[in-house]
């Protein structure tokens, strides 16, 4: 079983995560149906938005993790889905941040160009 907090694989009988010490609840106590109905956001929309408008391959990485969320949910791997969901979220922010950074640099160049144009008049 995977630790829902940090994603580290643990023995199915483990009571605490070997990596972060998080208290673990044995998966067997949850029926399969209970796991799949729990909502895990896949950030697919955000991933597609950053892929199309931030023009960066990082968005593709986010879509891969978004797809993994639903693949793992279908397989009943709730902890794995949470892990993929967090990664999808992270890569969406990376893609958005880089896109925003480039936009701001362009804005500064634009303003700088405008100012030098004014001073040349």
């Amino acid at each position, binding site marked *: 079983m995977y630790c829902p907090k940090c994603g580290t694989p643990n023995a199915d009988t483990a009571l605490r995560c070997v990596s972060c010490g998080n208290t673990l609840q044995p998966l067997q106590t949850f029926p399969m149906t209970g796991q799949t109905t729990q909502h895990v956001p*896949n950030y*697919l*929309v955000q991933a*597609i*938005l950053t*892929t*199309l*408008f*931030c*023009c*960066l*391959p990082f*968005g*593709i990485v986010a*879509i*891969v993790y*978004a*797809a993994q969320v*639903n*693949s793992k949910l*279908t397989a009943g791997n709730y902890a794995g889905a949470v892990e993929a969901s967090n990664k999808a979220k992270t890569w969406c922010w990376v893609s958005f941040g880089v896109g925003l950074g*480039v936009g701001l640099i*362009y804005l500064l*160049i*634009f303003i700088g160009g405008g100012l030098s144009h004014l001073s040349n008049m």
Partner: protein
Amino acid sequence: MKTAETRKATRLFETTGLLLLISSSAVFLYLIDPAKSMRGFQCPFYALSGFYCSGCGSLRSLHQLLHGNLGAAMALNPLMVLSLPFLGYAYVSFVLFGLTGRSLPEIFIKPFWIWTLLGIIVAFGILRNIPLYPFSWLAP
């Protein structure tokens, strides 16, 4: 602990913020044609590699769409135009969630469709770089 009231306030704040972001971007893209006014500001991916990525032309395409030129918008980035209904659905779902706490059912739940979507986006990014007739139509 977050109370139900603060959660509702956060949702309303996010919904209003997104609406402001979308409407200000729409006004900006209506007034400014990226094909003319933003010539010196190339996408860093295109400037570095010389290849069109899947998102290339999406701002120019949105400008054409805001002026009602569906054909010109499709010519610049068909994938972006075709994804708009889905993005619109996601937006309506987000707004409904912000106002009522309930959202519309998700469309992309089956992993197969998400992987297919990924395949389409990647294939589109590759095919639009081929300078031959049927594929050159995909280039911006």
